[in-house]
């Protein structure tokens, strides 16, 4: 069965965290987030795809919560792509962490590495090559342009 778009809410240390998951498209509504009135974190880990109308709906949501302290975390590549393509997708939000995709040039295995922006800001590098957990070769390289994952600052 196809995954459905949903938003789940929890609280962590006094901050509301919104877990967005599923495909984001023209039918996706962010009313829970739009009603936020204090700082918030949006966790994008569960997002599968996002289309152009989904981007528009999200940007409209961001306009409604302009002025709040907003952080994005666990952004998968589909979200990172939009963060790079559409500046208003991020607006004034701080990106805390992103998933960097790797592809094994030996066996085509894919994996993702969670990278904290705080670590990058302190000088830690995104590994250019990783060991493939499937074939064991040091052949996993970043799938895409490394610079697009550096979202600190």
């Amino acid at each position, binding site marked *: 069965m196809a995954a459905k778009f949903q938003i789940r809410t929890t609280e962590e240390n006094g901050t509301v965290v919104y877990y967005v998951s599923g495909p984001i498209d023209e039918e996706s509504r962010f009313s829970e987030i739009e009603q936020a009135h204090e700082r918030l974190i949006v966790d994008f880990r569960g997002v599968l795809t996002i289309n152009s109308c989904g981007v*528009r709906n999200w940007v409209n949501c961001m306009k409604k919560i302009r002025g709040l302290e907003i952080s994005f975390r666990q952004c998968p590549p589909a979200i990172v792509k939009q963060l790079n393509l559409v*500046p208003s997708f991020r607006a004034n939000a701080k990106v805390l962490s992103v998933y960097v*995709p790797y592809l094994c040039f030996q066996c085509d295995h894919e994996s993702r590495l969670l990278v904290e922006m705080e670590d990058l800001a302190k000088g830690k590098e995104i590994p250019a090559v990783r060991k493939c957990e499937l074939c064991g070769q040091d052949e996993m390289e970043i799938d895409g342009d490394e610079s697009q994952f550096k979202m600190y600052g």
Partner: protein
Amino acid sequence: MSAAPKFDPNANDQLICGLFSKKEAAQLIADGGTHIHSTTEGYRDEMARFTNALLNEKNPQPHPWQLLPNCREVSLASSGERYKLIKRATVDMGIFSRRGYSEKVECVMEELITNGIFHAYVNADGSNKYRRESSVKLEDKEALVVRYGASQEGIFISVEDKGGRLTLEDIGSAFYRCYYNPDNQIVDDEQGSGLGLYMVFDLVTHFRVDVFPGQRTVVSCWIAGRRIAHPSIFSFNFFKRGA
């Protein structure tokens, strides 16, 4: 040996070769450029030479990356069926479990299909026939034709509508707005966001549009395999037939 043609924004069907970013290519397209190849080989590039040979043809042949003989062809007449079709395509092409690749393919297919459904057909007064806010069933004669195929080198996708309304000006203005006006990229329109073709162009290696005005539009794309793809190697081609 003939000299490389110079770009004349007032002329049609001229080939422009160089090493560009997609943003720079967007400027050329917005200025009226119809055939843009970004390549390290300049005018000697195989694909650019292929384009050059097509420029004066009345019915330009497909580019070599258009895997038409080997691809699957599916008819789509309902907006609600598109997710199923896209998922099936990723399975057929053997990339379903390859997330990075399948995400790109899904994005390209989704944007091209929704463009076809919601922008290709108009009422007599010129307004859009189908509204994006609801599920749409196209008339039989309006059904889209979606083609896709995979090879070791990459993925081919094309979507054909029966409206024939896409213009170079539409594409150029959308690209220019999205690449050069970051504060006004999005069109807040019930029919769409104005981002779709920009998102597709950003993802693909080769992008070709064949418009038969008032009859049909075919948008074709090639996504080079990730071991081959390079962000500076790409092409844009716009052919208007019967012009």
